[in-house]
């Protein structure tokens, strides 16, 4: 089939019946993803057969079955490792990973940090609903401290991970965050993530309607709440948020602080905050300090950061592997296995 590289989101929907619960946030992310795939395939001329979606275990890990592309549904926690193998073996492929907070931050935590550290060219959608859904409601590594779940009947006593801190701490080159309901934003972030050469982690804050309903609602409940309690970061733009765009973030050299434009800085000085005082988002700086702080902001002290928090260039692992292969193949005297077997110290037994 000749590729005209014109795809719609419908071209990426498989014939499988989607079996997530009604109201589950994963539905929205699936829509965002198929839209993102259509956009990338059309604009960058990537034919559908070049896409491969890999997952682990959990609700979100059913994702590959619902996308009409090559797909691999792995085992619990191992999606990042499997996807690393796919990408390194076949760097032509556009490889996506669908995984959750249990899959990638608990049982697969090791693979997660190492895929990030190596900067494998993968696009990871990390669905964070702060609960184990498929096993029916046990706490996960991102569950809020004190939360009562089936395995924490007296409240959890574990401090949760923030996936962004983990990714940036592991040397990640791309981290972004969205909310299930923000379909257009998620789509945009997934497109940017897929175009990033290296490991791109997109945390999708999703709602588990059955076992952890409304866990993100304090800042994500509706449009009005989101306007006041989240901040959409854009590279090169000031960090302003609020329905009236009257709040912003400043950096005092040690930490971020929320300020109100037109009011006192609140740092003991008499100065009034102007728009010029607001921190400009530099997603491209290699220094991870502010990115780390942005990724760690949580309600109610801070607005929750959405958008691309960090996006820096670095060689991807798979491209480095194949650079070495090309260099070694060009410079070797050993062209095939026969050459190899006869290399080094050999001796000949003559016919007697």
């Amino acid at each position, binding site marked *: 089939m000749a590729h005209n590289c014109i795809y719609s989101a419908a071209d990426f929907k498989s014939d499988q019946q989607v079996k997530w619960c009604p109201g589950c946030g994963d539905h929205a992310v699936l829509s965002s993803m198929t839209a993102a795939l259509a956009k990338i395939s059309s604009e960058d001329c990537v034919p559908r057969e070049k896409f491969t979606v890999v997952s682990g275990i959990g609700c979100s890990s059913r994702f590959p079955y619902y996308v009409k592309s090559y797909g691999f549904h792995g085992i619990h926690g191992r999606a990042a490792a499997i996807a690393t*193998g796919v990408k*390194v073996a*076949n760097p*032509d492929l556009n490889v996506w990973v669908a995984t959750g907070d249990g899959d990638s931050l608990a049982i697969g935590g*090791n693979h997660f940090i190492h895929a990030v550290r190596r900067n494998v060219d993968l696009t990871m959608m990390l669905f964070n609903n702060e609960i184990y859904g498929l096993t029916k409601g046990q706490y996960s590594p991102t569950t809020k401290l004190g939360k009562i779940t089936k395995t924490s009947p007296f409240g959890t006593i574990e401090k949760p991970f923030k996936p962004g801190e983990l990714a940036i701490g592991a040397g990640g080159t791309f981290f972004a965050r969205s909310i299930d309901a923000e379909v257009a934003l998620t789509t945009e972030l997934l497109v940017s993530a897929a175009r990033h050469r290296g490991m791109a982690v997109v945390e999708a804050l999703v709602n588990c309607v059955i076992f952890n309903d409304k866990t993100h609602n304090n800042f994500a409940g509706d449009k009005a709440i989101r306007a006041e309690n989240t901040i959409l970061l854009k590279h090169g733009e000031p960090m302003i948020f609020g329905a009236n765009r009257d709040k912003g973030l400043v950096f005092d050299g040690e930490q971020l602080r929320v300020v109100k434009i037109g009011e006192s800085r609140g740092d003991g000085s008499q100065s009034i905050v102007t728009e010029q005082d607001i921190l400009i988002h530099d997603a491209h700086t290699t220094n991870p300090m502010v990115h780390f702080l942005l990724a760690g902001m949580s309600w109610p002290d801070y607005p929750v950061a959405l958008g691309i928090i960090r996006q820096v260039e670095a060689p991807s692992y798979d491209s480095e592997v194949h650079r070495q292969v090309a260099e070694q193949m060009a410079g070797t005297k050993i062209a*095939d296995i*026969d050459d*190899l077997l006869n290399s080094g110290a050999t001796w000949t037994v003559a016919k007697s």
Partner: protein
Amino acid sequence: MDTQNIKQISDVVVRFSGDSGDGMQLVGTLFSDAAAVEGNGISTFPDFPSEIRAPQGTVAGVSGFQVHLGAAKMTTPGDGCDTLVAMNPAALKANYKALKPDSTIILDADTLTEKEFRKAGFSTDDPIAELGLTEYNIISPAITSLTREALSDLGLDIKSATKCKNMFALGLCFYLYNKPLEHTFDYIERKFAKKNPAIAQANVRALKAGYNFGANTHAFANTYNIKAAVLEPGTYRMINGNQATAWGFIAASQKSGHPLFCGSYPITPATVILEELAKRRDLGVVTVQAEDEIAGICTSIGAAFAGSFAVTTTSGPGLSLKSEAMGLAVMTELPLVVVDVQRGGPSTGLPTKTEQSDLLQALFGRNGEAPMVVIAASTPSDCFHYAFWAGKIALERMTPVILLTDGFIANGSEPWHIPQMSDYPVIKPPVVKNIEGDYFCYDRDPEAYARTWAIPGTPDLEHRIGGLEKDRRKGSVSHDPHNHHTMTELRAEKVARVADMIPRQGVVGAPEGDLLVVGWGGTRGHLQGAVDRMRAEGKRVSHCHFNWIDPLPRGVEEIFSKFRQIVVCELNMGQFAGYLRMNFPQFDYKQYNKVQGLPFTVDELVSHFNTLI
């Protein structure tokens, strides 16, 4: 050469031993290589502790390398040794039990000090008497000081000069066995000349000094000559099992046209396979040193899905960690080879020692009904052959395969008649590139039951696989009870049908007799040695050795039925014997088992077999 007596002998066993940092593995290898190039049959047995540098001078830190060289093909590294090189009293203490009567001990006189005796745990200042070795032929040159003296004008620091003492000992052995030094000069030249000419010169000097010491001082009453073995004409090289395994995979990759991918995690004694493969970017080999054993196999499964010939390498504890992922490879029916270089277990066990105790884990150690092809290599060089065949089976039959080797054959080396790849068969995996109508990824070949392999990137064959049970036809997720039963049978039958592509079981020796010695994997040389010796004495003993474990080859019952007794010999507590009882319950199996982290000895086998007939 001086006028000393040169005795012709058929074979000899030499063991080099010293502290872990003394370079005993290196000189053992160089001695073996030189003798091999001179045409001797060779079998080697490196034996070392798991600590890298255990406290100097203690028995725990002793590293040994035994080589058996002879005027014929050597099937074992020998039970006991004729010459023991002991670089210190601890080495003597660790190895004296391996001495044959009348053997020669070369002991560094510089280490015969009170301090060394105490470190080695001697209670007296006379280790020879304490160990009851006064009847042996003991040569004790001052190896350390003679080496330093020989290098005194080279301006080396004392530590670097002392390090060359292993070369002095090697030179002395070359003199004793009338081997030329040139091969070792070549090695030193290749290894050090560019990087460190001073060290190269020092090593050459020490080697010559050891040789000359032997010649000038008439250190030995006799020297020995071992004729070249009569070998098939051709080109030869030395090879160890791990290297052969790595190269067998590269061969399979080349014959299949699918690039080789190895995701792996370092583990003794398998690591060398990964190291060998990592060197071969020039042949397009991709290696990923994964973050753990699970990632090792999972990256390989991903690579197999993406179209590579994927392998992963490990040892027992790693095989345990890979179990779940092996089940995934069974379920997704992807080509994958898992190498288990067996070591002493359970748990961390004896990491540097050999054992055959992972057999049942390889056969059955997965959740669910999860059959895999299991193959066992049996000599250092045949690791190449079985690695190649593991690849051929995996790729053509779309199944994961476990290749079992062990620490003994993985580290051991022997001369190898280098094969030509034109003599090896082509490998044709069932790759699909286009198809009429809908593509169903679990459609099977009607004979082999292999499913087709549509590689991501191929237009119109987009499909999804995974660990959930799949519909037997469409490949979509299925929870249908009867479908699950059918798929279970299909997966088992696919493995069973591999019997169609492997040779019938053979027997060495007469096809009938009083005793059939049965073994599998890396014990081949010792069992064959024992059977050969008994047959030479006129005993009606034969040897039936298995490399194909699951499926078992055809023809086994016919062989077993012709012997009065069957004894199954294994370096475990009877795992293969149990497997044979399960498969062929009509026979009675005696067992001979050893779990000491050591290979069998021919002597112990012969004496046991004699009690059976």
